[in-house]
């Protein structure tokens, strides 16, 4: 019998895992003992970190897109389709339309995050974002024309993708307006849901003095409740109202509905053992990246490291050996602190982050990694 491994989601986690398995299980794939299928609901792989640069006119959305069939090893069967149901009892997936169901022996869910701006009345009409291609290009059109007024960045969704990106955006905007001699005409305000400027206290402690130095206003304990696009105001659950001329938000995020429908976890996030990444509510199911509710940031580096762990564990299972690989919470992020400088953090479940002093070298390292990322997606780096 051929053992079937099915991966749902062709983002960073799914693509890295598919290529990892193609390499790791090469003998079994060649012999027809194992088949690996990667299912994605579109033909392209999207590298989302590119979007941070789009509003500043520095990158194009196309820079973050590549066809999955160019990135994924030929030994992996690529299926462009939408999964509509997961039955973890019979171990079968149902697809959009009348396509036959597909069975699995091992399932990996890497379906990622989706944006849910409609959770906040008025946000879709009044706010902009750089967490989607369409959002980033619409924001670019506004930002390039923006020369004076109140720019408000509001972190609404938590958890959200790339926890450093809101800080990066305001640091970059500050520098960008300064370089163009416009900073005195632009007020920048950053809002955050809790009493710090970042969820992680170590990063918050590092970022707050930089924000003060750069004259970036901060509103903490600000949980957006509604946006009035006519009056150009955003109001929080805590009763604070802010005027804006340009509102940039990190919208509420959610996972895909089929995870909750399958009883694997709330809000589209799969409840997992945070070390083995095995789903708690079903056998033979793993989750990784944003989809796995581990408490670590929703970041590409996390998905990348977790894919290596799941790849090792699946190879062990296929070979009837005990699976011993575990995820230690490793996370790695570059944090832009302006248009020409960046910091860097690396941390895990046990070791907290300690941001490196910002430097031009780290900024170029970040840009270089963004190019080298395509090697990561191919499973080479």
């Amino acid at each position, binding site marked *: 019998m051929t053992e079937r491994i099915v991966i749902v989601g062709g983002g960073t986690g799914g693509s890295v895992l598919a290529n990892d398995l193609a390499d790791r299980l090469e003998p079994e794939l060649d012999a027809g003992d194992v088949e690996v299928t990667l299912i994605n609901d579109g033909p392209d792989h999207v590298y989302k970190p590119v979007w941070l640069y789009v509003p500043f006119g520095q990158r194009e959305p196309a820079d973050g897109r590549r066809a999955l069939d160019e990135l994924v090893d030929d030994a992996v069967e690529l299926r462009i389709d939408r999964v509509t149901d997961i039955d973890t009892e019979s171990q079968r997936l149902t697809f959009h339309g009348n396509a036959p169901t597909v069975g699995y022996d091992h399932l990996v869910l890497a379906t990622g995050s989706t944006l849910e701006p409609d*959770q906040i009345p008025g946000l879709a009409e009044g706010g902009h974002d750089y967490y989607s291609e369409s959002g980033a290009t619409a924001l670019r059109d506004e930002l390039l024309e923006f020369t004076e007024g109140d720019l408000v960045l509001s972190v609404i969704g*938590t*958890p959200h993708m790339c*926890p450093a990106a809101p800080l990066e955006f305001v640091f970059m905007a500050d520098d960008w307006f300064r370089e163009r001699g416009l900073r005195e005409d632009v007020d920048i305000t950053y809002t955050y*849901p*809790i*009493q710090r400027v970042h*969820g*992680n*206290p170590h990063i918050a402690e590092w970022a707050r003095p930089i924000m003060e130095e750069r004259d970036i206003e901060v509103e903490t*304990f600000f*949980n957006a409740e509604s946006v009035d696009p006519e009056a150009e105001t955003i109001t929080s*659950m*805590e*009763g604070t109202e802010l005027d804006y001329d340009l509102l940039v938000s990190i919208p509420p995020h959610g996972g895909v509905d089929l995870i909750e429908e399958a009883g694997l976890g709330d809000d589209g996030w799969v409840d997992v053992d*945070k070390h083995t990444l095995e789903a708690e509510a079903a056998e033979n199911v793993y989750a990784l990246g944003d989809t796995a509710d581990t*408490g*670590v*940031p929703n970041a590409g580096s996390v998905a990348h490291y977790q894919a290596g762990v799941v790849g090792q564990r699946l190879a062990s299972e296929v070979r009837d050996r005990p699976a011993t690989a575990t995820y230690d*919470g490793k996370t790695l992020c570059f944090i832009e602190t302006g248009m020409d400088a960046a910091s860097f953090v690396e941390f895990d*479940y046990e070791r907290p982050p300690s941001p490196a002093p910002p430097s031009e070298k780290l900024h170029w390292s970040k840009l270089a990694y963004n190019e080298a990322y395509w090697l990561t997606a191919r499973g080479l780096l």
Partner: protein
Amino acid sequence: MTDIEPDATVDARGAACPGPLMDLIGKIRGAESGDVIRLLSDTDQSLTDVPEWTEEAGNELLAVEEGDDHNAFYVEKA
């Protein structure tokens, strides 16, 4: 021990980032006025974070049960 019956529980034990308070806020956001949410947290920081936020947001912290390895916070949405 309290005899408060929560409408929902948020188990944030082990949550490192963004942390238990963020999880609580997320649950409160979707709750109805008058609902009681129970937050389980093993971070000591919640003992200061949660009361600060509930006061700021006008919600009521009904009770805190301090345990050996985690604390339980009962918050009623205003």
